[in-house]
Structures are given as structure tokens and as C-alpha cells.
């Protein structure tokens, strides 16, 4: 294992070159730890990574940071613009500050932790990702969420979980209102275990018993399992 940290200062070097270097890494690369300085709000930093490396970014990032990643760990020491960890496949992304809209949009797997707030449409169309927001989320979060977990330690804005399919939503604070077909549901033992695990991984000291669980009433489905034989 290579212990040296590769440091890239984006004030002096090219963003595309950085992303290309990260894309060129093989799974057994010895360069497993990268540090990015002066991101200055640039878009698409550390996207499309396919190998288990850690990228730490010191500062605020622009759109789509850490999008589409597999296996990698990305730590953002600042705020993130639109679509952080969009379509995340696996791995871990942490935002120390706040995230703009559509955080974790359509993510398939992995864990996104936001220490601050996330704005509108957090977890829109999520497909298996787990998202833990230590602050609050904006309106239409988990819109059309299909699978995965959204944990909100603060409050949720209007129309939480509108047109939700099968994701689980956990909110500790106030929910302004629920979207179409999203209802409060009983917290099962499995839900509690899952929630406890996510809070632990997010290094949150929130207590599971303070959360309420929301999910789909399954009234908007066109497909009904009882009619499966007729298709």
C-alpha cells in the first residue's frame, strides 16, 4: 500500500487531467489517497471513479461532484453544488457543509452523508442509495424514490416522498407535508436496525427512537402484484 498522498491543486492544474488520472487508476493502484486543493466551485470533480480510492477535496465544489462513482470515498470539506453524488453506484461521499438541490439523485447504492442541510429534491428518483442528512432537506425530497433510505435528522420541506415507490424515509424533525402516495408507516425492527446502522456510519448521535418512518401507500402503482399473472 502506497502511503503517499497525491495532492492536486486545481488553481495550478487542470480539472480534466485530474479526473483522467483518477479514471486511469487500476483496482490495485498504490495511489489510494488523493487530496484536491482550490476546487473553487468547479463542476464534476472526482466523477465516474471505479476503484476504491479516497479523494479529499478542500473547499466548495460545483455541480455533480462524485457522481456515478463506484467503490470510491469522496470527502468534500465545503459545500456542494447541484447533484452531488448523482447516480452513485457504491462507495461513500461526505459533504461537510451544505448541499444544493438534487443531492444523491437517482443513486443506485453507496452512502451519501451531508453534515449540513440539503436543498430541494434531495434523493430524487433514488434507486438504492442511502442518504443521511444531519440538517434539513428542501421540498420534493425523495420524489419518485424507488429504493434505498433517506435519513433526515432535521426537518423535511413540502411534498416529501411525492410519488414514492419503495424507498424508506426517516425524519427526526417536522415534515412540512407529505407528497402524493407517501404515508407514515410503522417502524419495524428491521427499519430500526437499518437506521441505527446508517446513523452510526454517518457518525450521528441522533437516537433512532426520535425518528418517524415514511414510505409508499402503493396506491399510484399501475402494476399490481395480484394481477401479475395477467401480464
Amino acid at each position: 500500500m502506497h502511503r503517499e498522498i497525491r495532492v492536486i491543486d486545481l488553481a495550478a492544474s487542470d480539472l480534466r487531467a485530474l479526473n483522467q488520472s483518477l479514471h486511469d487508476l487500476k483496482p490495485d493502484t498504490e495511489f489510494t489517497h488523493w487530496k484536491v486543493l482550490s476546487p473553487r466551485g468547479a463542476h464534476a470533480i472526482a466523477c465516474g471513479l471505479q476503484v476504491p480510492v479516497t479523494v479529499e477535496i478542500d473547499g466548495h465544489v460545483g455541480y455533480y461532484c462524485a457522481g456515478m462513482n463506484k467503490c470510491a470515498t469522496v470527502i468534500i470539506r465545503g459545500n456542494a453544488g447541484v447533484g452531488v453524488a448523482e447516480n452513485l453506484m457504491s462507495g461513500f461521499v461526505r459533504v461537510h457543509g451544505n448541499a444544493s438541490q438534487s443531492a444523491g439523485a437517482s443513486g443506485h447504492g453507496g452512502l451519501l452523508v451531508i453534515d449540513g442541510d440539503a436543498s430541494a429534491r434531495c434523493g430524487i428518483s433514488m434507486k438504492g442509495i442511502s442518504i443521511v442528512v444531519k440538517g434539513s432537506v428542501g421540498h420534493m425530497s425523495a420524489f419518485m424514490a424507488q429504493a434505498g433510505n433517506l435519513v433526515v435528522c432535521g426537518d423535511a420541506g413540502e411534498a416529501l416522498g411525492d410519488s414514492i415507490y419503495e424507498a424508506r424515509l426517516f425524519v427526526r424533525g417536522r415534515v412540512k407535508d407529505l407528497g402524493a402516495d407517501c404515508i407514515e408507516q410503522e417502524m419495524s425492527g428491521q427499519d430500526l436496525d437499518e437506521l441505527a446502522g446508517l446513523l452510526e456510519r454517518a457518525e450521528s448521535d441522533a437516537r433512532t427512537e426520535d425518528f418517524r418512518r415514511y414510505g409508499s401507500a402503493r396506491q399510484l402503482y399501475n402494476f399490481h402484484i395480484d394481477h401479475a399473472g395477467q401480464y
Partner: protein
Amino acid sequence: MRFVGNSDAICVAFYETSVNLHFAGKPMRRPRHGKLHMCGIVGLFFKNRSFEPRLGEYFGEMLACMASRGPDSAGFAVYGSNAPEGSGKFTLYHPSLDYPWEKVAASFQAADGSPPQWERFSTHAVFVIPGPESAARALLREQYPEVKVMSAGQRIQIMKEIGPPGDIIERFHVRGMSGTHAIGHTRMATESAVTTAGSHPFSTGPDLCLVHNGSLSNHNNLRRNLRREGIEFETENDSEVAAGYISSWLNRGDSLKTALERALDDLDGFFTFAVGARDGFAVLRDRIACKPAVMAETDDYVAMSSEYRSLVPLPGIEQARLWEPEPGTVYSWSLPNAS
């Protein structure tokens, strides 16, 4: 920053196609490709007036940085020195680079024969004209119908052109301008033609203007209704309708804040607006808030932009309070000793 070579035609085709979605029972439009880059807007407002000489320097950098969001055209409004008591500041436009503005100046001679102050900025000229605004407008309409009034008021000057924003910033010497605040726009046209008149900001009255990122879907109907009230429109542009709408309510005695709040109910579509007034600056996003906006505030200034990266050149940005304006909420700031 240099012009990033997007093909306008392709981008327009992308954004003009839309699918219908529903939000809270109301139909809404969304670009089919879900890509929400179109147009960049920026605003900078100094709370600390010692920064005034450097307005153009900071604002020019912010606007240049948004060129990639709107490569078609660019424009801005700068709030500079006050016109002397009893006179008004007019920004006039003619497409010719060597338009004989001195002739126009001669038509506005004072009683003692002295000509008004004026200065040429590329296709625009800023005049300080004595007397009421209506008289100056009437004379211009009568004697110089080929000249367009871009802005009128005590402090505002609006300048806008088609072409790469970086070039426009140079042509108008933006970096050398001083003042208390400025708003600007880089355009990627979606709803109407790429013309100077269709560029932003749009004047909404004396010392007032608006820039818009987004698209309105009920602008034709609104324009018809506003025309019946006597509001004049020069283009088929949706943002001009937003400006006309604000003017209409200001004319009826609304405050800027109230007029903007009304817009939330009456304008159907997507918008982030930045509004400039003689002594202030306001920001509003629609309730769905698909169009991005980020704000930064320090003891010295308030700034907004479509993207954080254009705020990076501002002094002390690392320590600034950064936030995303809430949907459907009017944010406004005024100069401390607004007269």
C-alpha cells in the same frame, strides 16, 4: 474566461423541447434532457461604500465566469453616480458604432447653451439630460426615432449586446465602472431570437431592471393583458413580459417586494430573478426553484450568482456566509442611507 463554444442551435433545440410534468396538481414544463444550464445571472451589492470604485472589477469577473451558461449575449445594469438634481441619466442605444451622438447632445442643450454630459460606450451612450424624463423621451421619439432608450433614471445604466460575454465586458469597459451595485446576465436563448433587444436586463421603470434565468410558459397571455393596460413590449421575449408585469404593479403603487410576491402567483414557469433598484437589489426564485442561485454575504457586500464559481473572485469569499435562496421568497437589500 473565454467563450465556450456551445452550438446555439443545438442548445436551443435541447431546451425548446419539453415534456409535461405535474407538481402539486399543476402542470409544469421541464427541459427534456433535464439539463438545466441556460443563462447565468449575477448580482453584486456593496454594503461598504468604500468598495464602490472596484464594482466593475469584481462584477466583471463574476459576469465573465458565467459566459459558459450563456454564450449568446450579455448585458448588465450598473448603478453609478447620481445625476444632478433636476436631470436624469439615460442610456441610449443605436447599433452603429459611429452613431453621431454629438447631434443628439446638441438637441439637449441647456438654456445657457452648454451641451449635456455624455459618454460613448460601444453601441451605447450615457447621457445626463436636464428636465423631466417624459420630455427627453418625447424629443428622442420625435427627432431620433432610430435611437432606443435602454434605461432611464437617476443612477442606472443598462448596456447589452449580442456576442460572447467576455467580448461584451471588454467593449463596454465594465471592469472600469464604479458604483454601489450591479446585476448582469449571460444568455442562452430559448424562447425568442438572439437580438440586442432580447438580451437582458430589461428595464422595468426609472432606475429599475430585471434579469431572468428560466422560461415562462404563460408569457403570451400576460403580454396581451399587459398591452391592454398600456405597457409596451418590443420583443416576443418571455423575460420582457416579467419586467412588464413588475412595471405594471409598480405603476399601480405596489412596493417592489409586493410586486415580486404577486409574480409568484401570476408567472407560470421557471424563474430566478435578480432585480436592481436605485437604492437596492432583490432576488426571487419561483416555488419549484429548478433554476439555481447561490448567495454570499459579508459585512462588505451581498452577491448572488447562478453558480458558486463566479463568486470565487470576491474578496473574503472563504469567510462569507453562503446559502441558497429559499424558493418563493423575496430577498432584498437597500443602501443604508438611501435618499
